[in-house]
């Protein structure tokens, strides 16, 4: 068992346990902290694959900006523990079978089709960021510019939604 395989299994275990913790915890702030653990562990997995720029963006944008926004809103709204309600019978009976079916379907598709995929090669890591930026500003420059419009619209939408009506 090589070192990278050991690191993978440690990080994968942390990720899955933290994701389960998101489901089990009843207080939203505990769920948010679990999700931060998931994101940091995923950044470790990206590093393991040699995608170091994506790993940095994952920590800065997801772990930093987005999750701070979540925690801020949870505290702003003074969110309390989830109350137990039994309004939806459908979720109780169909939830787990649905999730198992979707995960099993994805896993079966993976097992059937990708047996020939080569393993992720972290040796090209140093050139990866350079390639990524070249690609982003040449082939994907129009989508990249469109994302700036998307963010602008999101800012306007958030301001319009959050302001108090007079």
């Amino acid at each position, binding site marked *: 068992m*090589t070192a*990278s*395989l050991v690191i*993978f299994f440690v990080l*994968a275990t942390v*990720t*899955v346990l933290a*994701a389960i913790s*998101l*489901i089990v915890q009843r207080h*939203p702030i505990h769920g*948010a902290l679990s*999700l931060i653990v*998931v994101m940091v562990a*995923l950044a470790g*997995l*990206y590093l*393991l*694959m040699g*995608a170091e720029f*994506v790993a940095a*963006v994952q920590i800065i*944008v*997801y772990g930093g900006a*987005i999750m701070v*926004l*979540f925690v801020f*809103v*949870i505290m*702003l*709204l003074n*969110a309390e523990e*989830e109350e137990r309600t039994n309004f939806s019978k459908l*979720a109780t009976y169909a*939830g*787990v079978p649905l*999730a198992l079916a*979707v*995960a099993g379907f*994805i*896993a079966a598709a*993976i*097992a059937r089709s*990708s047996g020939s*995929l*080569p*393993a*992720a*090669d*972290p040796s*090209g890591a140093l050139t*990866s960021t350079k390639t990524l930026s070249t690609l*982003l500003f040449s082939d*994907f420059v129009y989508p990249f510019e469109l*994302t700036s419009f998307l*963010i602008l619209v*999101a800012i306007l939408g*958030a301001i319009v*939604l*959050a302001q108090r009506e007079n």
Partner: protein
Amino acid sequence: MVPTNYYLILSAILFGLGIVAFVFKRNIITIFMAIELMLNAVNLAFVAFSQSLGKTDGEVFVLFVIVVAAAEAAVGLGIIILTARNRRSLNVERVDLLKL
């Protein structure tokens, strides 16, 4: 070297857990976090394919997904604040005006 299938199976497991959280949780903020979890699972699959095939396109898609997730979080949390202000509750089952 970690086989690419391991990453893809981990991604499928995370996506399934995201669905479970989405269906079972009653708190609107937690449901929103479940969506973020599913987006993260998809990102993991993207990076795994990208590194496995030796192409960087998948990582560019991950950056776009992160941008969309950030925009979605900004607008979605604005909607959540409005809902909480109007309905005085974060429970999705108390937001049922459209229900017959």
